[in-house]
């Protein structure tokens, strides 16, 4: 009896030992697999962001348009200088800061998306603007296509692969676009001139299907009203047609991206201002020194200009001054 008990204890001890040791080894393997998988997912998540960032970099060397194929569906996010992949609540959410000025919808979930790059000059080159759009986001222009040459030219410069639709103001009937809105995740109506249907009317037509945004552009005043998906109105001004394209492609996300663009404009103005100062110190011809000095003063004001009127006024003046410097065979601002 005692011997049997001893044998049981010995067997029990072996079992307990085996179970504990097995559990430790199992825990180790689970932890190892977890570390391995999260490591792989970290690399993959960052790699897709880096690929998108590099592709945009390479594409932005020159102006142009193309359709990007990501070779898979990724949940890409674009938020004011930050690229992201994945959904914010999940473990596979990654972010990467980018220096590029990207005007686009907040999310792109498609394998294919259209890209258009355009240089922003004010009047010297400031940056390359990127406009991105997937086919689930619909932009509809409503404007005076029969009477305004400005509107026709503005629309005509947009590459066809960006998939913009345009309709004349007099022929615009919201009911005609319900089926288009139904198939879209974001529907943006851009009015050029006075809107024929207000935000609430359009919301009642399209609001049930996806995000509706309305932009009302005044081409003469360089201003616009932006109504977000909740009907909140924001008054904005744009500096140059390139920025207006940005407003159209980014909608309610415009202000933040515009701020990045304006910071860059300020930086480039500082560079040109200092360049003019340095060139002046090397110049002997009085005519050139005078013209450069005037240009320097203009750039000083341009650097601190905040209002739309000041900016457009100085844009023209700096452009004219540069032309004058060129005519006099002097070193130019840009």
């Amino acid at each position, binding site marked *: 009896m005692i011997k049997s008990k*001893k044998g049981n204890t*010995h067997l029990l*001890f*072996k079992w307990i*030992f*085996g179970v504990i*040791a097995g559990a430790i*080894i199992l825990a*180790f393997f689970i932890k*190892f697999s977890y570390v*391995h998988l999260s*490591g792989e997912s970290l*690399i993959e998540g960052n*790699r897709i962001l*880096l690929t998108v960032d*590099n592709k945009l*970099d*390479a594409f*932005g*060397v*020159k102006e142009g348009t193309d359709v990007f194929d990501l070779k898979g569906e990724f949940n890409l996010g674009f938020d004011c200088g930050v690229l992201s992949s994945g959904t914010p609540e999940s473990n596979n959410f990654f972010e990467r*800061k*980018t*220096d590029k000025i990207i005007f686009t919808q907040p999310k792109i979930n498609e394998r294919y998306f259209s890209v258009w790059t355009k240089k922003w*000059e004010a009047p*010297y*080159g*400031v*940056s390359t603007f990127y406009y991105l759009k997937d086919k689930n986001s619909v932009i509809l222009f409503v404007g005076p296509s029969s009477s305004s040459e400005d509107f026709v030219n503005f629309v005509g410069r947009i590459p066809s692969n960006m998939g913009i639709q345009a309709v004349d103001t007099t022929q615009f009937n919201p009911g005609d676009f319900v089926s288009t809105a139904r198939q879209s995740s974001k529907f943006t109506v851009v009015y050029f001139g006075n809107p024929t249907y207000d935000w609430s009317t359009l919301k009642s037509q399209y609001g049930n299907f996806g995000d509706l945004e309305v932009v009302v552009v005044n081409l003469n005043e360089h201003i616009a009203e932006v109504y977000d998906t909740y009907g909140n109105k924001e008054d904005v001004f744009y500096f140059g047609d390139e920025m207006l394209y940005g407003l159209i492609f980014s909608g309610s996300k415009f202000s933040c991206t515009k701020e990045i663009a304006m910071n860059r404009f300020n*930086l*480039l103005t*500082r*560079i*040109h*201002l*200092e*360049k003019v100062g*340095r*060139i002046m*110190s*090397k*110049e002997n011809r009085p005519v050139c020194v005078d013209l450069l000095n005037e240009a320097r003063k203009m750039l000083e004001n341009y650097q601190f200009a905040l209002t739309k009127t000041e900016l457009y006024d100085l844009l023209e003046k700096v452009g004219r001054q540069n032309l004058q410097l060129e005519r006099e065979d002097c*070193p*130019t601002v*840009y």
Partner: protein
Amino acid sequence: MIKNRRSQVHVSETILVLFVVIVILMLGVVVYFKFSVEKNKDLAEELSEEQATIMLAKAVGLQELSCDGTGCIDTAKFLPFKRVLGEDFDMYRRIFGRKKITITEIYPVPHDSAIDVECDVIKYIQMEYPENCGKWTIYDYNPENELGAKISTIVSLYYPEFDEYRVGRLEIEHYGDIRR
């Protein structure tokens, strides 16, 4: 007494077997991680080179350095750019990352005394400029003093002060790292 010894031997055997198994497992894991780290290092180097190649094309067209629309590099922007870089380093670190960007004048061949002499404000204000120096370090960020690989391209350098074009080499040294 003999049985007790036997059971002790059994337990020791089990512990020994477990110990050997764990050691083998540990070795396997260490080897695996070593390969995994090497693989990731190779991937980082590959991506870094890809990024540097793109950067080479991008730097030529960067508005801070380039002439407006003519495909050359404006040397009069170098010193203003370096000043702005000092004020907004974080922004440029996001653009360039861990790299060193230099521009060297190669034709006309600089005078012996000017080869590899860095052009700075002092050199610029001298009458001899641009013959008194032949190199600009536009950007340099290598906090961990890593050894880098170099790629370069030939560029056209424009001196607006003298309305003169020269030939230069734009060189990017990248440090096998995609961090910024």
